[in-house]
């Protein structure tokens, strides 16, 4: 039985990991773009981005999952009821319920990109003006100053908060359960209904512990690697 459960949980865990890795792949760069937006000198862009970040950080991720899962379908249904030949509404009418995994991925990417963006912003703004000024008097361009001098210092500064956020993401993936994504919690829960067993659900904790343990080791390694200088 233990093996059967482990196998089933591994299947669910594969989805969990897929969601985790895909979220990182999209959210890490998107967060940088958002952070540049929130530091923009163009005020409308800055305020638009900051309001967006406020909305995303100010509402539960679970709610965002539900909204992103259901709203396209609702819009599509409303559009199908309209008696019009408007091209845009006809296009909306083709919207169906979003695929579960994609809906979860989109929600996680948007949510985490916003959190990452604030960490990036804090890191970039914490670098002293003197570093840029030293680059300037040495005749470096602004991009040269950012990529050759500032960036590594920012990375060193943001490793601890980023590792925190990324470890949280591993466990937050279980929220996808709310829109019936077949991730590890779901696969553990299934044994309650099918075999009346509760322990497979508890057993899922071991998988999370393992993943977070590995990530902790990885981040410690990176921190150690960057410990040759102090900022």
């Amino acid at each position, binding site marked *: 039985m233990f093996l059967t459960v482990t196998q089933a949980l591994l299947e669910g865990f594969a989805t969990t990991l897929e969601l985790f890795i895909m979220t990182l792949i999209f959210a890490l760069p998107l967060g940088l773009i958002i952070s540049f937006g929130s530091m923009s000198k163009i005020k409308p862009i800055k305020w638009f981005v900051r309001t967006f970040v406020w909305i995303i950080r100010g509402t539960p991720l679970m709610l965002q999952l539900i909204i992103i899962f259901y709203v396209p379908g609702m819009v599509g249904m409303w559009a199908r009821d309209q008696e019009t030949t408007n091209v845009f509404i006809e296009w909306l009418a083709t919207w169906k319920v979003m695929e579960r995994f994609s809906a979860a991925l989109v929600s996680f990417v948007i949510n985490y990109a916003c959190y990452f963006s604030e960490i990036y912003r804090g890191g970039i703004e914490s670098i002293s003006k003197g570093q840029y000024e030293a680059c300037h008097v040495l005749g470096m361009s602004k991009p040269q100053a950012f990529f050759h001098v500032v960036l590594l210092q920012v990375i060193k500064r943001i490793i601890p908060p980023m590792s925190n956020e990324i470890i949280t993401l591993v466990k937050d993936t279980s929220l996808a359960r709310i829109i019936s994504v077949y991730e590890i919690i779901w696969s553990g829960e299934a044994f309650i209904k099918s075999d009346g067993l509760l322990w497979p659900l508890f057993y899922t904790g071991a998988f999370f512990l393992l993943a977070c343990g590995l990530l902790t080791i990885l981040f410690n390694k990176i921190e150690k690697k960057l410990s*040759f200088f102090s900022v």
Partner: protein
Amino acid sequence: MAILEVNELTKDFGSTKVLKGISFSLEEGKVLSIIGSSGSGKTTLLRCINGLETATTGKISVNDKVVFDSTVTDKKELKALRHNQQNIGLVFQQFNLFPQYTALGNVTLAMKLAAKKRPDYKKNKKSILEEIDATAKKYLDKVGLSDKLGNYPCELSGGQQQRVSIARALAMNPQILFFDEPTSALDPELTGEILKTIRQLAEDNMTMVIVTHEMNFAKDVSDEVIFMDDGVIAEQGTPEEVLVNPKNPRTKAFLNTYEK
């Protein structure tokens, strides 16, 4: 011939007038010290000449080339002028070394980045980089740090860090070297080594402008001293004239605070 000429320079921060019309010139090979109490505009003057701040009005020329002119309003033209500013070096109060580079790396970084633009860079990459390393080593040797090439700033004392930053500025081969209170972040024990380094540069006839609170040092090393007070030059002359026999009552009052 004057290597640096500053004409009627003013700088406002909002409604605060920090510089209220500064004019002076400096001959090649001379050392100018700027003294004055905090808030008198010394550092702002330095930053305006260096292009870290944009002056409100006035004109600055280096080596007979205009580097800033407030009557020029065209942004492109202003940027082109500013290009001439690159032969001014600056040593900061807070060193501003790049923490992730070694002493050698700090000195070579800007040169290596600039070398990438050379047309023969790809062909002679190795010899160009070796040449840059050699130049950097020469300057680090000059400031007495040839045994610290591979050390990171966090492994160096404050005085050593400041000497690396002097080497870094020298390596750009500046026509004028500016110092912004180079010893203010150092304890008195470490101040000596920086002053010794600057003194050596003076002996090599490096043109220098030094903002400092070290009066004895200013007396020793400078050819000319400017005393700034409330955004204007209150007194100007040889160290003898300004520091030993000041005429302006403000200068006297300022110097008195040091003798106690």
